[in-house]
């Protein structure tokens, strides 16, 4: 009987194996190995979830039984071990839940620090320059919620100088949130003019390219990069248009035009800035907006200028493609002669995250342009003009080595000033966050 049964089973097994091997190999229906592995991973995950769920249900039941067990202990004294262990596991489950909730709850203050750094190499055919490496900027960002509605943000940069490091507080602000429509901050922040200055802070890893556009470069004077004062910002109820605003009042530029008035204003006039932008819900990735900035400049005692800056931007922030464009007009009026001067700058940047090799490659191109009058008393306050005419193209590629480090290489062709020769340069950078 048993041997016959074995024979039948052997046939059955052989049939199953043959059936499995002869399954139709339709190319359209067969999932790839990777797809199957993914499915297995997902099933494993689901199994873990189910096990976890089962464990908790068991623990809850055990807790109930345990409670009954305690009540009946005097009667059922012969089996004390089981309820005790069940109680213990229920307690453990409860502790586990509490730990999860504790972990997920924000504690105040809760300081997060993130560092950014880059190492660069530059070589150009400009006479009088040397090629070589430099350390770029070492930057520390701080973010710390102080309560459910109050938070602090800070940014500290260390920039290599020939004999030392220049340490600078780039941002230091405390923000009070009332709701989504009104948030107020006090301190030093990046002036909300245009797009780049308010989006890409210090830390080259954050931006696609090696360098910032000239019109918003750190240490530049075309637009005021920093602002010390107060800033109100928030969303505007506007349905699918996604409007948001910011409005600030502060010290404006100091006598050194590239610096903000960290230690106090240079004159009794406050600068103000207002910006409005939209992120339409139907076109996720699109942002456009404009801003106005007003200040009174006193670059040297006794010389005063009115400054108006109008700016507009249009960007598509997704990386397939990425499109950034920004325009600014800087208007100065000499308060002695009442003469006016207008300078314009814009850039257009295009990038595309290639779909191959896990989206690691991102080629880009940027065209930038600055035009200023031949004589501009604010830019020419020092023997070396702080703003020059500029026409430049940058073409390069970014390669994301990991999620937190990138390698960039780019070629630049620029002409500064009028009738000056073009300069060609090759630049490389590795930028990372830690």
């Amino acid at each position, binding site marked *: 009987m048993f041997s016959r*049964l*074995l024979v039948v*089973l052997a046939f059955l*097994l052989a049939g*199953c*194996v043959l*059936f*499995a091997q002869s*399954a139709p190999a339709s190319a359209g*229906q067969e*999932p790839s190995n990777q797809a199957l592995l993914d*499915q297995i991973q*997902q*099933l494993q*995950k*689901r199994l*873990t*979830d189910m096990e*976890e*769920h089962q464990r908790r249900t068991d623990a809850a039941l055990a807790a109930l039984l345990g409670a009954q067990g305690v009540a009946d202990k005097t009667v059922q004294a012969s089996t004390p071990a089981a309820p005790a262990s069940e109680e213990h596991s229920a307690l453990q489950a409860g502790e586990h*839940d509490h730990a*999860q*909730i504790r972990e*997920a*709850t*924000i504690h105040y203050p*809760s300081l*997060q620090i993130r560092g950014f750094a880059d190492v660069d190499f530059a070589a150009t055919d400009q006479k009088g320059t040397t090629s070589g490496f430099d350390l770029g900027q070492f930057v520390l960002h701080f*973010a*710390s*919620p102080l309560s*459910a*509605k109050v*938070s602090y943000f800070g*940014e500290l940069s260390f920039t290599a100088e020939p004999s030392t490091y220049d340490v600078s507080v780039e*941002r230091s602000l405390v*923000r009070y*949130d*009332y*709701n*989504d429509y009104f948030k107020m*901050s006090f301190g030093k*922040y990046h002036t909300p003019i245009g797009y780049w200055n*308010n*989006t890409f*802070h210090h*830390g080259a890893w*954050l931006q696609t390219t090696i360098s910032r556009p000239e019109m918003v470069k750190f240490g530049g004077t075309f637009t005021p990069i920093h602002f010390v004062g107060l800033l109100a910002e928030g*969303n505007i109820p506007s349905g*699918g248009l996604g409007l948001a605003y910011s409005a600030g009042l502060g010290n404006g530029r100091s006598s050194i035009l590239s610096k903000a008035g960290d230690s106090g204003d240079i004159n009794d006039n406050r600068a103000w800035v207002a910006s409005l932008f939209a*992120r339409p*819900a*139907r076109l996720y990735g699109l942002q456009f907006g404009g801003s106005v900035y007003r200040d009174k400049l006193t670059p040297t005692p006794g010389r005063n200028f009115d400054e108006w800056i109008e700016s507009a931007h249009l960007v598509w922030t997704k*990386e397939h493609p990425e499109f950034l464009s920004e325009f600014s007009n800087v208007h100065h009026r000499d308060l002695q002669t009442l003469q006016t001067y207008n300078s314009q700058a814009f850039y257009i940047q295009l990038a595309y995250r290639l779909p191959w090799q*896990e*989206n690691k490659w991102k080629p880009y191109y940027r065209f930038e342009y600055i035009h200023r009058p031949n004589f501009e008393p604010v830019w020419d306050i020092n023997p070396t003009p702080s703003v020059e005419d500029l026409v430049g193209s940058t073409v390069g590629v970014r390669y*994301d080595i990991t*999620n*937190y480090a990138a390698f960039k290489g780019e070629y630049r062709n620029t002409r500064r000033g009028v009738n000056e020769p073009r300069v060609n340069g090759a630049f490389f950078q590795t930028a990372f*966050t830690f």
Partner: protein
Amino acid sequence: MPIRWKIVCGVLVLASFSLPAPQHLFAQAHDVDVAVVVQPDTPVSNLSLAEVRKIFLGDRQYWTANTPVVLLIRAPVARERDVVLKIIYQMSESQFKQYWIAKIFRAESVSAPKVVYSNDMASELVTALPGAIAFVDSRDVRPGTKVVRVDGRLPGEPGYPLR
């Protein structure tokens, strides 16, 4: 049980392993809707997909002036996370990480979404944390949480967008 029946059972189990994989079961797992759940006290019951996106992008941070939004998202590999990254964020894993680093240090948000490791954990935290919002497999929705309609539809209804 006699030894022969043990052998029979063992052979049958082995035979079952050699059968072709039930592909239709895998296919079903992929089609399950992902539910958006919040605490029952949260003053929301219907959101458009654009509003869900705005919330998960950190552009809307408050339900009411006193109730901040607490974002919960599954850890990598989970299907719920894949759905959220693909449909809500439209980002890869690395773009998502980069987005939140930049968002926090632009002073636009104080923290990234909190990571949860199971649907149970997501449900527990939604129940425990006021203002919490999470995505869970619609089969794992637990009592004590409220399922939010997306574009007027609940999970399982035709046209539900989070799948």
